[in-house]
């Protein structure tokens, strides 16, 4: 891979963040969706009786916490699915591709612009949950949660990695999709594999330990990097540009110049 020009990447990130801020649907989604995902864990955590045995308590509290990992999957998947298909549909992709930006820089810029708000929002929601638990939950429940080291490590470690996964899957769909709606619908596929892992954790097939968390994180990192390279290869300027259509008509006239 050729060296990336950080000026190009920064320009894309800055533009994307400006564009998000001005698009109400994105702002509303980013503001509301994470807190919707917060409701369920809070309700579950606060409904667990403090008298529950520590082993049952530990199991009952794992799933609500892991449920929060859907935030860094759902938000970026939608945005990533829009990233290229949206540019193409609004006619901004061709002018952009006529500039010296490389496709890797474009993908990195788009990805970073999606990653930054998604990860920040996810961490904010985790912070709110932990603060609420620390302040308002029964001390036994609170202690049980704060002692769930592997789960808490997973939350913080997996958030950017899962966001990265959702972004590359969303972008892979976006560079191939001819329609934004189709891209966004297919973008939800990004959540399927992580949901499967969460389900395996919930039913006890996978036992959450520090080493399991670290192994999963390492595997996810490798998958993200590989997937990013695949997206880069899928990014075909010619295919993306030649979908555009243009027609115009013109007129002229015969005239004569006077000699006398």
């Amino acid at each position: 891979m050729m060296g990336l020009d950080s000026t190009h990447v920064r320009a894309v990130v800055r533009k994307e963040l400006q564009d998000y801020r001005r698009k109400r649907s994105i702002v509303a989604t980013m503001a509301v969706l994470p807190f919707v995902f917060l409701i369920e864990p809070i309700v579950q955590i606060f409904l667990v009786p403090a008298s529950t045995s520590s082993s049952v308590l530990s199991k009952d509290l794992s799933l609500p916490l892991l449920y929060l990992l859907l935030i860094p999957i759902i938000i970026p998947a939608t945005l990533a699915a829009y990233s290229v298909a949206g540019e193409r549909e609004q006619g901004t992709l061709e002018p952009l591709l006529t500039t010296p930006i490389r496709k890797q820089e474009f993908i990195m810029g788009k990805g970073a612009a999606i990653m930054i708000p998604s990860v920040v929002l996810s961490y904010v929601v985790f912070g709110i949950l932990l603060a609420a638990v620390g302040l308002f939950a029964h001390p036994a429940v609170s202690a049980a949660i704060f002692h769930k080291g592997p789960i808490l490590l997973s939350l913080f470690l997996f958030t950017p990695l899962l966001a990265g996964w959702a972004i590359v899957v969303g972008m892979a769909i976006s560079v191939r999709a001819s329609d934004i709606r189709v891209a966004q619908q297919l973008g939800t596929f990004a959540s399927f594999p992580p949901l499967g892992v969460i389900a395996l954790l919930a039913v006890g097939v996978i036992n959450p330990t520090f080493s399991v968390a670290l192994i999963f994180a390492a595997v996810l990192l490798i998958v993200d990097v590989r997937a990013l390279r695949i997206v880069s290869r899928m990014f075909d300027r010619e295919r993306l540009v030649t979908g555009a259509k243009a027609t115009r008509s013109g007129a002229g006239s015969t005239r004569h110049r006077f000699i006398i």
Partner: protein
Amino acid sequence: MISPDQTADVDGGADGRKPEPAAPASDAPGPTITDARALGGTKAPSALVVNKLTKRFGERTAFSEVSFEVAHGEVFGFLGPNGAGKTTTVRTLGTLIAPTSGSAIVAGIPLSPENEVEIRQRISIMPEAPGLYLRLTVTENMEFFAGLYGLHHADTRIKDALAAVNLADRAGDLCGGLSKGLRQRVGLARTLLSDPTIMFLDEPTSGLDPVAAREVHDLIAGLRQKGVTIFLTTHRLDEAEKLCDRVAILNTTLRTVGTPAELREQLFKSALVVKTVAPLPDPDKLFAGIAAVDSWRLEGPDSYLLSVSDPRAAAPELTRALVSAGADVLSIGEAQHSLEDVYLELIDEDVEARKR
């Protein structure tokens, strides 16, 4: 004004005169290439050299065996009907799509995958639709593209580019609130940002009102005077005739290249138009007696089109003959065929050829 004053890396044009266009590619399709103007004395390297360039999409040929050269500082018009391959040619030269065969040198750099970024650094393309981010302001759009061209501290450059298209007072407006014409001007300002060696303008006056179109024409004329090479794709033949040093007519294959005057000379015989107050009693006899007139035909009840080899030599003799015959002459003028006539003649030839 940004582009005229800050333009660099161009040959000629510094004195404000139109630089001479280069001769066409040596291996250009012989019969259809009419332009043979060479640079006087030393030959400057061309801004654009296209040699037998072909692009196919599967079975469909977008354009085939296209060859031409564009000199530095030249305004080169690229005409053709819908589907002729004009936009695909621009996209190919702009490294957006890869040619199927042939070669090109764009802004001094051979067109190849490894040179794509360097070529895009030296050129700018304004597609038919300006493609602006409608939720961003004019300045934010410009800042984005300045970043993509790697321009640091581009404030002055952005201001100058907007001033060049008379949009300085709209810099803070959201692009979504601008009219189509104003958006087109923002698109044009964007192409000025990077001080390109070659500007590819695809229908730059599309959708503009006459005043705005005239401003764009003035801007293009100013850029030409300062030596920027402009590759202008247009359907407006009057625009091409007014702005372009040379034009090429493309209809999948290149039909012709030359100055508008050369193309007219190539396709149409010189003619005089005579208008009288009343119909001439015996025009056949009158015109047959004038040596300079090759043939004639009626254009209207009191109007005659005379085919001549040299209009300036024929006009005085014709005037004398008409006066001697007692005709009340309203006007004698040289018939001028527009670029549209040339265009239609060539395109009609293609249509007829396909019918056969």
